[in-house]
């Protein structure tokens, strides 16, 4: 049995520590074709990629800023450095990683998790991966897990070209275009047909530089009948200037393949998190999103599943915790584009200390998607009267032969429950934290133990000082 509720005392320094910036090279702030070309040169792009970046920049300049959702006025692109190269070369052995960077990841528990329970790890520091390693047994089965840059020049170059930003084209929205222009870092994963990896791969993203952006690209391709669990973690120390994260995740799930994509996001509270994630699922395939959003100042995050083949399935299990000063706009989208497809959405949003948490779901069932099923359930918990939690469901159903359900609940922590837990010896803040952890257990129970513990740590951190 997983022992989830016990968490050791932690202090915020676990995430907030930061080392002096010793980046090897930082590009001038702002955006221009010159800057994009410089990044392209720095990264030794193939020609097609350089052209792709420049085209994306044009698109970026032609798309107006969005006019819905939380304000991103505090984000001034003129002051964001889009590329910061850390003072390190990518290593496949932690000893070869410079001490301060290595210590950062050690404090975050990455090397330890790798030893214990991961099939491969990638660690990104600012704009580049500084560590990447895959266990032999996975390599032997033909699993590819590498940084995108080197993959672009290797035997998978064509495969990447065929998939890169095909699911999330730069024209999708302004920050997708920005991503196309200045992306850097991230991972490429390929699992061959029939290969089932039982233990997860993990990528960790750390943004250490001040006033910078992180634009990593994650591209995962699963062959027929294969399976994978990919875990993504991210954090940053807090600065008093805006940082930007505009990553992009593209997941191609082959026929009868199964992918679980788990994220524990804990960006610092000066971060604008405008991330785009999308999965294309073929016949009989399955995508499971497990998502915990705790950090950032403003988030826009709506992982999308396109159920492209008959019988494809999507499950989304998420929790969002918006504390003081946070406006987290999260949710998920599902497009049923084939018959017999099913989607299941189960989310919890928590708001506290004036935080705003908005959950948007969009379910589209196309006319050809006969006999599809969708069930959406969102619960929110407001921890005080100044906080807000909204649920905005949207449905576009084009066939009568579909079974669609939606359920939303809003609640508060009951005084009776707090009294009950306290009567057994829990102080009030612990009692509340336990109730909130329990509320978020839809995600907690889907995560591997260490991550569930980390999530409960984050909840406890957020809950400290609720009392009084």
């Amino acid at each position, binding site marked *: *049995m997983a022992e989830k*509720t016990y968490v050791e005392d932690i202090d915020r320094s676990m995430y907030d520590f930061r080392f002096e910036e010793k980046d090897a090279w930082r590009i001038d702030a702002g955006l221009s074709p010159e800057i994009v070309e410089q990044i392209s040169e720095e990264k030794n792009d193939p020609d097609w990629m350089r052209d792709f970046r420049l085209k994306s920049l044009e698109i970026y300049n032609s798309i107006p800023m969005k006019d819905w959702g939380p304000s991103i006025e505090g984000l001034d692109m003129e002051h964001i450095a889009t590329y910061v190269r850390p003072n390190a070369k990518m290593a496949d052995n932690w000893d070869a990683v410079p001490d301060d960077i290595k210590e950062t990841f050690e404090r975050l528990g990455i090397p330890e998790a790798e030893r214990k329970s991961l099939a491969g790890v990638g660690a990104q520091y600012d704009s580049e991966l500084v560590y990447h390693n895959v266990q032999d047994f996975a390599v032997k089965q033909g699993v590819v897990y590498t940084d995108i840059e080197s993959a672009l020049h290797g035997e998978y170059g064509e495969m990447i070209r065929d998939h890169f930003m095909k699911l999330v084209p730069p024209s999708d929205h302004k920050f997708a275009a920005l991503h196309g222009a200045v992306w850097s870092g991230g991972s490429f994963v390929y699992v061959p047909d029939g290969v089932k990896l039982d233990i997860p791969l993990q990528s960790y993203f750390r943004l250490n530089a001040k006033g910078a952006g992180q634009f990593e690209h994650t591209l995962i391709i699963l062959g027929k009948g294969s399976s994978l669990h990919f875990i993504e973690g991210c954090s940053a120390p807090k600065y008093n200037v805006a940082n930007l994260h505009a990553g992009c995740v593209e997941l191609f799930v082959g026929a009868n393949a199964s992918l679980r994509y788990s994220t524990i996001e804990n960006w610092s509270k000066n971060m604008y998190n405008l991330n785009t994630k999308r999965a294309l699922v073929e016949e009989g395939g399955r995508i499971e999103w497990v998502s915990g959003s705790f950090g950032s100042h403003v988030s826009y995050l709506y992982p999308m599943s396109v159920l492209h083949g008959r019988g494809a399935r999507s499950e989304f299990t998420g929790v969002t915790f918006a504390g003081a000063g946070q406006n987290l706009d999260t949710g998920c989208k599902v497009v049923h584009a084939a018959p017999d497809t099913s989607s299941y959405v189960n989310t919890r949003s928590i708001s506290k200390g004036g935080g705003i948490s908005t959950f948007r779901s969009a379910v589209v069932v196309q006319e050809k998607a006969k006999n599809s099923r969708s069930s959406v359930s969102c619960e929110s918990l407001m921890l005080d009267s100044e906080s807000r939690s909204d649920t905005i469901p949207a449905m576009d159903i084009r066939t009568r032969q579909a079974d669609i359900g939606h359920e939303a609940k809003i609640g508060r922590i009951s005084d009776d*429950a707090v*009294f009950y837990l306290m*009567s*057994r010896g829990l102080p*009030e803040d612990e009692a509340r934290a336990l109730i909130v952890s*329990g509320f*978020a257990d839809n995600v*907690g129970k889907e995560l591997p133990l260490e991550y569930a513990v980390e999530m409960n740590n984050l909840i406890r951190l957020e809950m400290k000082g609720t009392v009084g």
Partner: protein
Amino acid sequence: MGEELLKIRELDVRAEENQILHGVSLTIGRGETHVLMGPNGAGKSTLGNVLMGNPQYRVTGGSIEFAGRDLLSQNVDERAKAGLFLSFQNPVEVPGVSLSNFIRSALEMRSGERIRMWEFRKKIHESLEVLNMDSSYADRDLNVGFSGGEKKKAEILQLLMLKPVFAILDETDSGLDVDAVRTVSRGVEEYQKDKKGTLLIITHSTRILEALHVDAVHVLVEGRIVENGDAGLISEINENGFERFLTQKAAEEG
């Protein structure tokens, strides 16, 4: 009476605008078992809740001393740490928190020390066995989807695991079938004998008391203690109900 463990003096309690308890006084010695009886709505649960510190109730007069210290100035969790325990008449459901994790957190909060998993597992299984509970209960969400009887057993499980100095059992036997009452009673007996516990048992029936030694019985009617006696009072009430006390009180008022 041995050492006084709990001393309630002239307690007045209000909830919202109503006065519920009127000058209740009660003293319980360490290691004793007292029974509190009274008709529905008399204020029995209120007394249990006030002892535990439920913020829904306001104490407007009187005092409570527990183990030589003023109880009313302590928070709920401090009272728990001082050794007070309430088996709730209606235990609350807490989704996503398993019974065993909760008990473990509670033990750790009380002792301030981390408890080894295998030691804990062993203990909880022993207690589950005493209560005829399947070990799968430990992994279920706290009280969620439990039947009335299961909830009460889960309360006694916590009693056995937390080993408080003093336990208030609020109608722990109500709504249980004969076998379940016997099982729960066995758990209470273990607490009374092996753990040398002190008890205040709120009940309407004698079944839970059969195997227990009872030191004193108190009758609460409309927020007042109207009679104190020994175990003999229980059978009298079972035969005649509370009629006599109601009349007595009506007479006083008249």
